[in-house]
């Protein structure tokens, strides 16, 4: 049973980062938007969830809202609040050069974190929120609830993957990729660069918020220290390891990276203290990134170009073949 619970926890963590990496893949991998504020969207989603599903605050333990909503409603709200933040950030910054987005989003994440720390009235400040409700079923015995959470995360990941695949393979995804490869040319073909980027940015941010929500499901507690800049870098590294621009790569990268990080915690050696372990995890993450960039610069998963067959209709196909044979180089 305990092995199963450990495995459930690992799968939950992998799923959370995989959803965030899928979202970053649409923004950065496909659209070329450098969002160093992943932690902000993650954190805002997490707090929006916790504050809407927790009961009203009482006594010295202060926080706003406390609406006591069901977990699934809180999860949707978490995603929407994150998307709203993306709309505000993106509508200003996606009009100007990409470097502005990178710098401002990085600063924004830290500003929001400091806001939660320094304004205890919002969500109990640095001490954070305890015992946030997580998805559960009454028929499942106490300790196995974690497995229900793992299953819920896997379902969210599965749905997210299908949605992102749909977007990246569509005409919309093509326009976004075109913008990333040559913005001026995309514009000359009639692509409304700003609108396409903003839609993709906001759509992806919904899922970053959802990843934050699932982080609360995993821990059931939430403090501002959880969503520091390390989350941003872990998601970026997962995407780069897996294969920037590829949805499957984003998922694979998160699975590999989190597998390695968490795998370290099961090494039973006396001299590894918790502090040393945390450093080792970060060092391992950097090492994996270096190795991947050296030997597989495009990431573990490099999709091949989609092949489009010639028209099936008999009237066109022979003509096509005849001309290409005649004009063959």
């Amino acid at each position, binding site marked *: 049973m305990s092995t199963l619970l450990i495995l459930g926890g690992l799968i939950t963590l992998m799923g959370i980062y995989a959803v965030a990496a899928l979202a970053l893949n649409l923004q950065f991998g496909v659209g070329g938007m450098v969002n160093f504020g992943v932690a902000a969207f993650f954190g805002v989603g997490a707090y929006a969830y916790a504050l809407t599903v927790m009961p009203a605050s009482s006594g010295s333990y202060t926080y706003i809202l406390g609406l006591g909503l069901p977990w699934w409603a809180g999860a949707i709200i978490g995603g929407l609040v994150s998307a709203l933040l993306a709309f505000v950030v993106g509508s200003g910054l996606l009009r100007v050069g990409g470097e502005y987005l990178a710098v401002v989003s990085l600063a924004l994440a830290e500003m929001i974190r400091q806001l939660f720390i320094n304004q205890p009235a919002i969500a109990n400040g640095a001490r954070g929120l305890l015992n946030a409700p997580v998805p559960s079923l009454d028929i499942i015995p106490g300790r196995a609830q974690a497995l229900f959470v793992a299953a819920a995360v896997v379902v969210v990941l599965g749905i997210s993957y299908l*949605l992102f695949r*749909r*977007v990246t393979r*569509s*005409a*919309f995804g*093509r*326009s976004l*990729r*075109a913008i990333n*490869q*040559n913005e*001026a*040319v*995309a*514009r*000359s*073909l*009639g*692509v*409304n*660069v700003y609108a396409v980027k903003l*839609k*993709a940015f906001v*759509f992806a941010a919904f899922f970053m918020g959802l990843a934050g929500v699932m982080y609360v499901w995993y821990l059931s507690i939430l403090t501002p220290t959880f969503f520091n800049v390390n989350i941003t870098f872990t998601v970026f590294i997962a995407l780069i390891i897996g294969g920037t621009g590829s949805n499957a790569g984003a998922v694979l990268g998160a699975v590999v990276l989190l597998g390695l990080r968490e795998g370290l915690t099961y090494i039973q050696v006396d001299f590894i203290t918790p502090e040393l372990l945390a450093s080792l995890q970060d060092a391992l993450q950097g090492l994996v990134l270096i190795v991947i960039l050296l030997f597989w610069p495009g990431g573990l998963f490099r999709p091949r*170009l*989609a*092949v*489009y*067959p*010639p*028209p099936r*209709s008999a009237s*066109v196909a022979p*003509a*096509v*073949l005849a*001309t*290409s044979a005649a*004009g*063959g*180089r």
Partner: protein
Amino acid sequence: MTTPNPLLEVKGVVKSFGQLRALDGVDMVVGRGKVTGLIGPNGSGKTTLFNAVSGFLEPDAGTVLFDGRVVTGAPTHQLARMGLKRTFQNTADFTDMSVVQNLLTSVRTVPGERLSRLFTSPRQISVSERSLVDRAWILLDRLGLTELANARAGDLSIGQGRLLQIARLLMEPPSLLMLDEPSSGLNPDDQHRLSTTVRQLRDVEGVTVLVIEHNMSFMNAISDALYVMHDGHVIASGPPAEVIRDPLVIETYLGVRSATA
């Protein structure tokens, strides 16, 4: 030269970069359904004029009228949707996409372009995708690129890349097609194929073409009217046969007098 109801009219357009007046009051009229050529020595302002017309540069002064409407300084993507499309002198392919995918990027009127409809009308989208791919293959056939359909665009030669740029614009034929040195880098076969395509566009689909070109035999083969630019001015315009005999043109562009002096 009077042209009734022109598709594109450029009136007194000025564009300066610091001290340099790249366009110094350019007037130009592009007749509907005609192929209009634009020639001039390097640095005479041809591409700057293209940029000013297609929304890449905002003119300092002057007016651009497209289809009777003032479009001076309008955003490029809006002009493209109105039917004014251009190619670029440098290769402008989306290099990490296949040739077919490059063609598919240029169609704006498909349901799959709208994020919200991706999840509400999947069937409609797959039907429209299929018909787009079919259209792409037909265009590639027309320009002799079928063998490269599924190749990475970045692996194409410069000439093939130029043909790809044109094929891409023809996915949704514009009313005004602006070509910036389309024949450079093309072998004679491809040049012939290109001039045939341009003439077909004009004669069959009624597309108006404005073309910058250095290759005079190519230009003679396709153009109905010719403009000559020098130092940001239009120095001559009219039927090609007349313009290339104009003494001023011969002096400034072909440099014959200075060569014999």
